[in-house]
């Protein structure tokens, strides 16, 4: 069983479209994250949720909206996609925010054309 799974793995879409990436973890963790890896390979945190509550929102454009229906799921919805949104998006989870060892999903490569 995959511990942190995200879908889809690849996403190609046109500018202006709205898309969602789903993430689920079966580790029983309380904290979930979205990280973005840009073209220069830097991994940067976007959002952190603890027990469905938003903890971190790192100066991410309003077009990005995370949604956590329960503590095992954290989805990422992106409105009005732009070319600069092309990146690899990783979902991750950790036992709680005080234990930083995070487990990552396989990533979603988003390409905006």
């Amino acid at each position, binding site marked *: 069983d995959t511990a*942190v799974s995200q879908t889809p793995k690849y996403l190609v879409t046109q500018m202006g479209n709205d898309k969602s990436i789903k993430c689920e973890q079966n580790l029983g963790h309380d904290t979930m994250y979205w990280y973005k890896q840009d073209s220069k390979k830097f991994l940067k945190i976007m959002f952190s949720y603890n027990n469905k509550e938003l903890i971190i929102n790192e100066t991410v454009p309003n077009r990005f909206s995370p949604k956590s229906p329960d503590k095992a799921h954290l989805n990422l919805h992106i409105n009005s996609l732009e070319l600069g949104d092309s990146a690899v998006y990783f979902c*991750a989870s950790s036992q709680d*925010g005080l234990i*930083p060892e995070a487990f990552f999903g396989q990533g979603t490569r988003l390409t905006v054309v």
Partner: protein
Amino acid sequence: DQQVKQNSPSLSVQEGRISILNCDYTNSMFDYFLWYKKYPAEGPTFLISISSIKDKNEDGRFTVFLNKSAKHLSLHIVPSQPGDSAVYFCAASVISNTGKLIFGQGTTLQVKP
């Protein structure tokens, strides 16, 4: 402002020898450090961590050393194996309820048979 730096983009070592990956940080508030390994098209996998109250942590072939005065940490892999070939990311955290990780840009390790 890059708070965590891995100044060597790549490293090549012979199988059986020691691999040493380096990482520097600037924020003295960091009190927890982690190393992740990443294969292509996969998410980062947690390897080993160290708290700022320690200067060494060992797990099998992997040892992490922390020099707080120099704001430097290193990952030693002994002996190196071809399966260790991957990108290695150093990450730092301030222990809090956010679990936020600040990543370096990664070092690509190639272990030659």
